[in-house]
């Protein structure tokens, strides 16, 4: 499943292939494979490096534990970006949604793609060093064929395979070191997130919120793959939070899936994970607040204990997963500095919270797109008062805004410490019509109990996609860029050169904005639509900007429905993935 692409003799290649597919004994008899020079000097990723990466590196999915999506590199600037050009491009060989960031350690790039593939490349030249391909079962349950990245630790690469198997690879060879089944794919559990390595553990959660899963975060020993702990996002009877569930068995299929990587605070050893909506979708089928669905939970990485939580909205009935974790950023409010968490939620609200060594405190919440479900927020707790006319239920049809895809779905925001702004990929003017249905649980089968249609907001649908910039110390919006003909599915990157990079639109463009004022400075048409997380790194003193282009999954689904609502205006985006790397020439 792994193969070298580095220089070596054909005999060695044959011997290596035999070593991979035949018997361990053959491995012992094979000559040692010739490791490409860039991998020979591979620099292990230590705990210290994960906490404080060199400016040149992009070692984890959002680069740093605080989730900023910010590179301090500043060679590429407002003044020279007109000369930003492709340095190299490589086809991934697969279709569907390419959402992973190019992760770079000391000149070696690791990219995860759909189809259970990890590619290692020379980050400077694009030369392929090895490819790992893990065959997918023909009948795999995989409602979102994508991967959002790998995790690095020591000399290993950790990959969450789609069929809910955690894989540890040798960073130098791409060979499997161990695999561990995280959950039964046949019961609807599948994975798409990048693992999180922190506190000496590698952590994952699973998707499956449409299939009656019971969400969890699990931690494993990076050396052996042995499970260290597992904490469910839906408590069993008697556990804290179980009082928010009905007395029956609803908790067993209660949802709260976990499909985006959490952020981490080394000071408190707490990891902040976001959770999906409850299952089935209609809240009246599981009365109660349903902790810890549609929440952020603070997990003690040593023990797995949930030390704090904030539920954005109780008893979800809108399919508003809140899986994007809050970023960790300290901000000013009312004359004091708050050790903060900032979350841009699918429910259409921007949440300013406070982190402690345990509980999460509410500070402020406000809508960033049209939102007609919340009447108000409790000033102390942030708990929304729900307009019952905007809450679908079994046998009841309602329209609500934003749509089930939310004001922002999974694509992550970025934060620039230079501008003190967060950058949000938003979708405005989209609403939903939804009807609840009774539904019966069957393992691995849909457990949504809803029919639904996307609708445009009345009289206001002049655009959908937006990039919004909000100042974290004022809590006010500074600038907005509107996309007149496209939704926005573009993860954000902020850089020390005063720039914001993103794609996300149906016109296949990769763009750079002035981080201060939102002026569009540069754009480049790629092969497909960009839903990948951009990253930036430096090799041999040169700064690069990298991103995957490859449309698919829910971006494709939304576009297809929009093209029905507004025929011809949202044509298909060509699929097929590529890794693009840009530099100043």
């Amino acid at each position, binding site marked *: 499943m792994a193969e070298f692409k580095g220089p070596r003799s054909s005999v060695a290649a044959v011997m290596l292939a035999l070593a991979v597919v035949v018997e361990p004994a053959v491995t012992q008899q094979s000559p040692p494979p010739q490791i490409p020079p860039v991998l020979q000097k591979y620099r292990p990723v230590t705990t210290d490096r994960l906490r404080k990466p060199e400016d040149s590196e992009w070692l984890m999915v959002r680069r740093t534990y605080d989730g900023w999506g910010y590179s301090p590199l500043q060679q590429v600037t407002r003044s020279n970006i007109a000369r930003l050009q492709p340095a190299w491009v490589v086809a991934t060989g*697969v*279709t*569907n949604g390419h959402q992973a960031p190019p992760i770079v350690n000391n000149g070696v790039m690791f990219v995860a*793609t*759909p*189809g*259970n*593939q990890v590619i290692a490349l020379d980050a400077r030249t694009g030369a392929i060093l090895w490819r790992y391909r893990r065959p*997918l079962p*023909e*009948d*795999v*349950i*995989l*409602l*979102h*064929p994508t991967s959002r990245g790998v995790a690095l630790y020591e000399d290993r690469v950790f990959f969450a395979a*789609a069929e809910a198997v955690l894989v540890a690879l040798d960073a130098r060879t791409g060979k499997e070191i161990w695999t561990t089944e995280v959950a039964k794919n*046949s*019961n609807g559990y599948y994975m798409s997130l990048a693992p999180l390595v922190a506190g000496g553990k590698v952590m994952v959660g699973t998707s499956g919120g*449409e299939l009656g899963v019971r969400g969890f975060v699990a931690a494993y020993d990076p050396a052996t793959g042995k499970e260290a702990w597992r904490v469910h996002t839906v408590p069993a009877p008697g556990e804290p939070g179980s009082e928010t569930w009905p007395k029956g068995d609803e908790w067993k299929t209660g949802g709260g899936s976990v499909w985006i990587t959490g952020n981490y605070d080394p000071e408190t050893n707490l990891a902040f994970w976001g959770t999906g909506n409850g299952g089935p979708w209609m809240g009246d089928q599981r009365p109660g607040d349903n902790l810890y669905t549609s929440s952020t939970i603070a997990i003690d990485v040593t023990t797995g204990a949930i030390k704090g939580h904030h539920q954005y909205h109780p008893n979800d009935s809108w399919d508003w997963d809140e899986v994007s974790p809050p970023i960790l950023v300290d901000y000013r409010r009312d004359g004091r500095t708050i050790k903060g968490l900032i979350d841009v939620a699918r429910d259409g609200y921007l949440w300013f919270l406070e982190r402690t060594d345990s509980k999460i405190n509410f500070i402020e919440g406000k809508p960033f797109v049209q939102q007609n479900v919340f009447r108000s927020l409790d000033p102390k707790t942030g708990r929304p008062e729900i307009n019952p006319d905007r809450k679908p239920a079994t046998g009841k049809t309602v329209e609500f805004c934003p749509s089930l895809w939310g004001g922002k779905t999974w694509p992550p925001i970025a934060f620039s410490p230079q501008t003190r702004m967060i950058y949000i990929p938003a979708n405005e003017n989209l609403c939903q019509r939804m009807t609840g*249905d009774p539904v019966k649980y*069957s*393992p*691995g*089968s*849909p457990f*949504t109990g*809803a*029919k*639904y*249609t*996307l609708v445009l907001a009345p009289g206001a649908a002049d655009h959908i996609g937006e990039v919004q910039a909000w100042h974290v110390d004022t809590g006010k919006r500074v600038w907005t860029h509107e996309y007149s003909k496209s939704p926005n599915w573009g993860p954000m990157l902020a850089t020390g050169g005063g720039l914001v990079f993103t794609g996300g639109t149906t016109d296949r463009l990769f763009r750079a904005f002035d981080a201060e004022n939102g002026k569009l400075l540069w754009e480049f048409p790629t092969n497909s639509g960009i839903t990948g997380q951009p990253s930036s790194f430096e090799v041999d003193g040169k700064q690069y900007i990298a991103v995957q282009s490859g449309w698919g*999954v*829910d971006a*494709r*689904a939304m*576009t*297809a*429905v929009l093209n*029905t609502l507004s025929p011809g205006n949202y044509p298909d985006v060509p699929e097929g993935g590529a890794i693009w790397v840009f530099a100043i020439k």
Partner: protein
Amino acid sequence: MSDPKKFPDRRVVLKGGLAWGIGLGFAPGLGRAQDNSTAARPRPGDLLVNVDDTSLAPLGPQDILAGAPVLAWALDRADGTVRNGSRLNRVLLMRLDPERLAPETKERAADGVVAYTAICTHTGCEVTGWLAAEQLLQCACHASKFDPSDGARVVEGPAPRTLPALPLGVENGRLVVSRPFTSRVGFESA
């Protein structure tokens, strides 16, 4: 995915003595052969049984009511094998007005009952929603809509192609698979 073990015995023997005798004769390869046959796609001559019916009573056209799609497995009537070894074998049965069927769909139907794969061609979610007002099927995961009266063509949403159809016939009052699926069942996982 339905677990094959949920059935008391997936080698349920309709013609007990004969099937058991064959099994003994090929004992060394028994397990593998049976695994393959439970995962094999429906074959001409197969009967159909409701996925929730552990009694494995073969379905007839009268069991399929208008507006109430039924999920079914194929059953090999030669040895009683239920083809539930792959979730890709889930079959959606629907009763439609024969006068509304497109010619090709009408030719595949049996007494107004049509059959399609239940697996969406987009990402493999099960197509179980029935929109009565529109007379369309809807996938629960990404909202693709299909017209079962016209070859399950894609009416809306991201599905890249029609749902493969399973042509049906009727024998002795029971629905019978008359031909294999009209195209490959499944989706593009990468």
